């Protein structure tokens, strides 16, 4: 239907021209492409060309053991890899009915929120980079490194952590790590004021973002938009609150939401969620109990998952990140389907919302929607 919506008449063909937006375009986040049919400065038609990051995860996981896959799946989503481990582990735990120790749940919560923070910081940088406010991206990306350092300390890797395993987490928190995390959280809290001054209170940023790619509540639900983008339209829905996982049901927090559904609302929503993540980490650090960090698990090589299927979703920085996992009782997953947070936004909603926008809005729209191509390329 979107094809019909953006159908171009024969007589218009002289008036339009095509513009390739990506893959090697500075405004494109990741390896992805929109082919824009433009009339003057206004976009008439958007055709996405995904698949440039396709690795065939859904096939590859079928060839590996249940636990081997832990090494593979973080690579599905690069800016925020922990969510994959979490979804996968949760799915296995649900299928096998494994109970995760409470301390492990809390650690998972902290790690996930840290990953969210780093994804949001990337998002700040995205708004900076696409609007020409490069200072913001320089700052936010270097601030993100404080979090990556903590990850490195905790897991041994900066980006792909492979830390959350079925049954718990790989290791306990090292000595002194918690204090350092608290310091970092306080530092980020302090920096948030600077970001407010630089980005969210900047009249020009507001001017650019206001009314950008406005999405109505109904349209968002119809198109399967989730996460901060949905909350920015006024639907107060958060998986962490409504279908809790990890230790979110034990932590008390409120979901922020906006009403406008435009670029500004989405940006502010992300800023609010940044604050929320800081708060959640603080609370989690306060409440974290002692105890084991991993349930007893069988030998990974002989580990089998009972027959069944489950759809597990968690709240990522881009929305609902979910796996549909089917097990035939064997030692390998029988089928795993990935539903990335920005699948619908990047591939389908873009065709509708970007029509009528301007060329300069595409990159900014992608930044405010936080579109991550690996999500839908898999």
């Amino acid at each position, binding site marked *: 239907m979107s094809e019909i919506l953006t159908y171009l008449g024969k007589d218009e063909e*002289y008036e339009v*021209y095509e513009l390739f937006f990506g*893959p090697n375009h500075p405004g494109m986040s990741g390896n992805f492409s929109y082919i824009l049919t433009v009339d003057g400065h206004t976009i008439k038609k958007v055709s996405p060309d995904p698949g440039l990051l396709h690795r065939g995860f859904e096939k590859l996981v079928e060839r590996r053991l249940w636990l081997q896959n832990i090494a593979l799946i973080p690579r599905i989503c690069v800016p925020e890899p922990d969510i994959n481990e979490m979804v996968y582990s949760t799915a296995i735990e649900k299928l096998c009915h494994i109970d995760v120790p409470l301390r492990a749940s809390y650690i998972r919560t902290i790690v996930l929120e840290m990953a969210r923070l780093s994804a949001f910081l990337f998002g700040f940088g995205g708004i900076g980079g696409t609007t020409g406010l490069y200072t913001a991206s320089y700052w936010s990306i270097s601030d993100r490194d404080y979090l990556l350092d903590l990850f490195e300390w905790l897991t041994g890797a900066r980006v792909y952590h492979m830390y959350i395993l079925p049954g718990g987490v790989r290791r306990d928190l090292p000595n002194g790590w918690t204090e350092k995390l608290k310091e970092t959280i306080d530092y980020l809290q302090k920096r948030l004021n600077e970001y407010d001054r630089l980005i969210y209170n900047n009249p020009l940023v507001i001017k650019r973002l206001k009314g950008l790619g406005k999405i109505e509540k109904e349209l968002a639900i119809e198109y399967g938009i989730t996460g901060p983008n949905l909350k920015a339209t006024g639907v107060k829905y958060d998986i962490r609150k409504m279908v809790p996982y990890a230790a979110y049901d034990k932590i008390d927090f409120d979901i922020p939401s906006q009403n406008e559904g435009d670029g500004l609302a989405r940006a502010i929503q992300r800023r609010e969620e940044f604050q929320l993540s800081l708060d959640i980490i603080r609370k989690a650090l306060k409440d974290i109990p002692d105890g084991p960090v991993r349930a007893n698990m069988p030998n990974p090589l002989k580990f089998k998952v009972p027959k069944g299927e489950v759809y597990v979703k968690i709240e990522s920085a881009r929305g609902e990140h979910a796996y549909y996992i089917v097990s035939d009782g064997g030692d390998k997953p029988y089928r795993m389907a990935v539903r990335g947070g920005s699948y619908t936004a990047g591939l389908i909603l873009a065709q509708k919302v970007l029509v009528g926008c301007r060329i300069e809005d595409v990159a900014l729209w992608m930044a405010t929607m936080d579109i991550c191509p690996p999500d839908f390329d898999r």
Partner: protein
Amino acid sequence: MIIGLLFYGIILSFLALFVRKKYNFLRWIIFSFYIFLTLFLTITIGKDSTYFETFNLISILNFDLSLNFRITPLGWLFTLFTTLLLFLTSIFSIVKNKNEDAERLINFFWFILIISNTGLFLADDLFTLFIFWELIGISSYFVISPGWVSSFRAVNYYFIFSIICSFFMFSGIMILYEGTGTFSIQKNVLYFISLFENSPLNAIFVAISLIIGFFVKSALFPFHIWPAQAHAKAPDDFSSVLSGIIIKYGLYRTILFFIPLFLFIKEYPVNHIMVNNIPLFSHILAWSGAITSIIATFLAIESNDMKKLAAYSTVANMGYITTALFSLSSFGIAGAIFHTINHAIFKTAIFLSIAAVKYRTHETQMHKLGGMAYKMPVTFLTFLLAIISAAGIPPLNGYVSKWMIYQGLLSSKFPFLTLAIFLSSTGAFMYLFRALHSIFLGQLPEKFDNVKEVPFLMQIPMYILMFLMVSIGIFPQFVINLINSVLTSYNISNINIKNSMIFSPLSGIDSVKVFLAFTGSFILAFILYLIGKPRKHVQPLDTYTAGQDPADFNLTRELYHFAYKFYGPFEHMFDSFRTDTKEFYDSIERKINEIGGYFRDFQSGSIRGTIYTFMLSFVLIIIYWWLL
């Protein structure tokens, strides 16, 4: 000699009527020859001669009706450049119209127009002026509308405006005649000046009736719409005449009447309202020029039809000229006259190159063109030099006159007029570049792969125009000396010029040095170019497509050319203003159609109907005169 020339011309034009359609080009060769003869004679007579000629038409009692011709510096200057440009256009037309199935009658009218041109500028009395003025009006009417319907509506605009113009002009002349009893321009101008002292009400009526013709002919606000309609629909080679020459007639007449008047008032400002040391009326006129230039600039930025764009550009230039002229400083007046000449040259160049493109592609919508420069380099160069000149960029001719206009405006302290000219001048750069890009650069559509450069005979005028633009830009002294003699004849202080160095009250420029600075820089650039590693030529579609292979997406060159709505969002800034203006003009158009409707009832044939309308109005004017 002038009368002989005119007679000879009339004979030739009748002869040309009998040339068979197959030998269409022969007709144009005759024209070119005739114009060349005029040019030759103009040059031989020389600007300083006190040449006078008279030809008695009728003489009843003591009422002499004769055609009088006199060479004045201004008239001579105008004759010179208009004839030169007509000559170039006619050479261009030889090939262009070879296969045109234009009516013989139209060629006849065109010829009449060419003859009248000389007559108009050399006329010594108001009667002669009016006769040739009307001849030009009627003949250009027939040339613009060579019988097909599409151009008919456009031409109606032009013609209705012409009628209004003639009506007022005639009544003005008659009032003056009543006072002086003679048609002599000099005497009438003096009378006109004294009329301002004696009976200001009458004088203002005369002034308005004379100036309205100027407003209409020179397309000043609020009459700035007709050129876009008429130019866009006129034959391509005639557009250049319309834009380069015909639009200047009003200006010529205005200089004739109003400059002496305003200079007089400026000198003896007793009993007159003065603003900034110039008469209020002059100030208003200067402002109307500024407003015209701004509005026309924005209209040009919006237009997508290349002929319309160039036509609006003409209007904008008329705006500058008016503003400069009525700033009444010597630099202003000299700049205005100089810019008139320059504008005629570069606008002819622009229209000829547009005509060349249209000759090969039959397309005037700019977004459907593109990449013509790769196929038509000479046309492209002409257009490029013309737009450099039009945008007033050194070192071509446009900048000298624009610089003089600025000196004039700034030295007589008109901040906002200067600003208006700055604004429209930058705007000129915007729309001219847009035309350059959309027509000549960017991607060449596949359907124009077989387009060739125009025939050599058509290139000749382009070469000459290029030469003129460059040489006037480097050595403006030759033209400025001619203008100085015009200034002398109006008792205005001359432009201080020493070789190529022009001194103004504010500063001075040496155009040779400006040219040398540019040449030197270009040589520097060229040396750097040679130092750098060699460049490789690549195919047009081998461009940055963000990594995508264009072949995968069936990308055609046509689909990779950005030309439509070039300044879209910028144009949208003026949306509310535009709708208001459009409504205003639509209502005027409805009114005109309504009035036209009455006359259509009066006579069924529409072209003839308008002519009868004209005659009727003529009678009405005479009655009006008697009543007065």
